[in-house]
């Protein structure tokens, strides 16, 4: 390796030598650094010094601690989360990790409950034409039996088969042909209220959905607060 005059050392890439000394030079940089260290005495000395300094740094004794950093009960009381943050912190703790699956399971159950309850309510709400079997049966039977009677009578006639077709319908209008109803009364006659079981199921389903979504939201908020500095 030809010797490079020290006067040229100022033009040498010292960071390359530092990278070489740290073992970080690769490829062409490694070749260039090897050439520099092998041919320039000052670069070689620098390389040696950098390695010596790196080796000496861990040996610098640790400074002595000047204070006891234990936390007093007063400081702990001041540092602990209070109020709403304390409640949220409890929700975010790993011990309440079951809240996440619970929070997602509750809305699922709730939605099923609402759907089941809706299945019991919709025939009563036949005016919306939601396509329930009871509604279809009523629509087919009504024109044949009603003949030329007025709209009120038609409504009364149609309500009777609907009620008989669906056992869930409990509050149907009397099916007497003599009964005449005004046009305003007709829809009221076809709307039948759900039974207590369906109402209860619907309410419970909605409560489950709300509770589950709320639980998930609170836990997400608590986790976000816990991660915050």
């Amino acid at each position: 390796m030809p010797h490079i005059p020290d006067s040229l050392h100022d033009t040498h890439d010292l960071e390359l030598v530092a990278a070489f000394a740290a073992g970080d030079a690769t490829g062409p940089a490694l070749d260039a650094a090897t050439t520099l260290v092998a041919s320039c005495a000052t670069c070689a000395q620098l390389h040696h010094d950098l390695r010596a300094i790196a080796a000496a740094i861990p040996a610098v004794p640790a400074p002595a601690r000047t204070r006891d950093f234990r936390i007093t009960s007063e400081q702990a009381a001041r540092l602990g989360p209070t109020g709403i943050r304390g409640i949220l912190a409890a929700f975010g703790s790993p011990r309440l990790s079951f809240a996440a699956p619970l929070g997602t399971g509750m809305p699922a159950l709730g939605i099923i409950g609402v759907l089941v309850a809706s299945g019991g309510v919709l025939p009563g709400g036949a005016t919306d034409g939601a396509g329930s079997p009871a509604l279809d049966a009523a629509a087919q039977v009504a024109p044949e039996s009603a003949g030329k009677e007025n709209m009120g009578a038609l409504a009364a006639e149609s309500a009777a088969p609907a009620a008989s077709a669906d056992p869930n319908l409990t509050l149907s209008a009397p099916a007497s042909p003599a009964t005449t109803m005004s046009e305003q009364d007709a829809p009221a006659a076809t709307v039948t209220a759900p039974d207590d079981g369906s109402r209860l199921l619907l309410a419970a389903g909605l409560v489950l959905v709300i509770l589950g979504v709320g639980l998930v939201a609170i836990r997400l908020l608590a986790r976000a607060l816990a991660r915050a500095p």
Partner: protein
Amino acid sequence: MLDSPRLTIATRRAAPVVEDARPSEAVDDPIQRRDLILMEQARDGSLDAFNSLVECYQDHLFALVARMVPDRDQASDAVQEAFFSAYRNMRSFRGGSVRSWLSRIAINAAMDQQRLKKRRPSQPYPELEDESWQPPAGPDADPERTAMHGERARVLRAALASITPDQRQAIVLFDVEGYDYAEIAEITGVSLGTVKSRIHRGRLALRDRLEGTIGLFRGEGD
């Protein structure tokens, strides 16, 4: 599970023999097992358990922070703030090494302290000449060698204190704490290349600062 009597007993034994099918080698470490038990108790509200962790790690954290923040008052403040932060955020601890978790909190506190110092510069490094920084000499130590080591430590500390905080932080984390480049990049929020560059330039800066006393170090590197 962590506070079960079986695990508590295991931490008191020199060689823990606990039949545990879990694959984690970390939990086999009695120190880490002890730390996890203390952390669990602290999270259940035991201040004594948390203070036991403080006692275990306050020397290490102070040494780490004091190397990054040369002003010892500021280093003390940073360590105290780190323990406060750890206490406040115990619930965010997701397992693993308590020592690493505390170290990262302390490093962040040290970085915050340095940023604060940039905004409000104080008297630079008033403690550098404090003799209490010297290592205690053993009874059979060679006085000449001890004096040389002491002098080398003193000039190196002064040199470290005079380079930029970013370079000092990278060098301390790499050379003293043993973090690798990727970990330092993650901790400090900069790229891998920046970490390497800070370490290389920092060592070059140290060599410049040590120009007059570099003879103390020659013969040590190879």
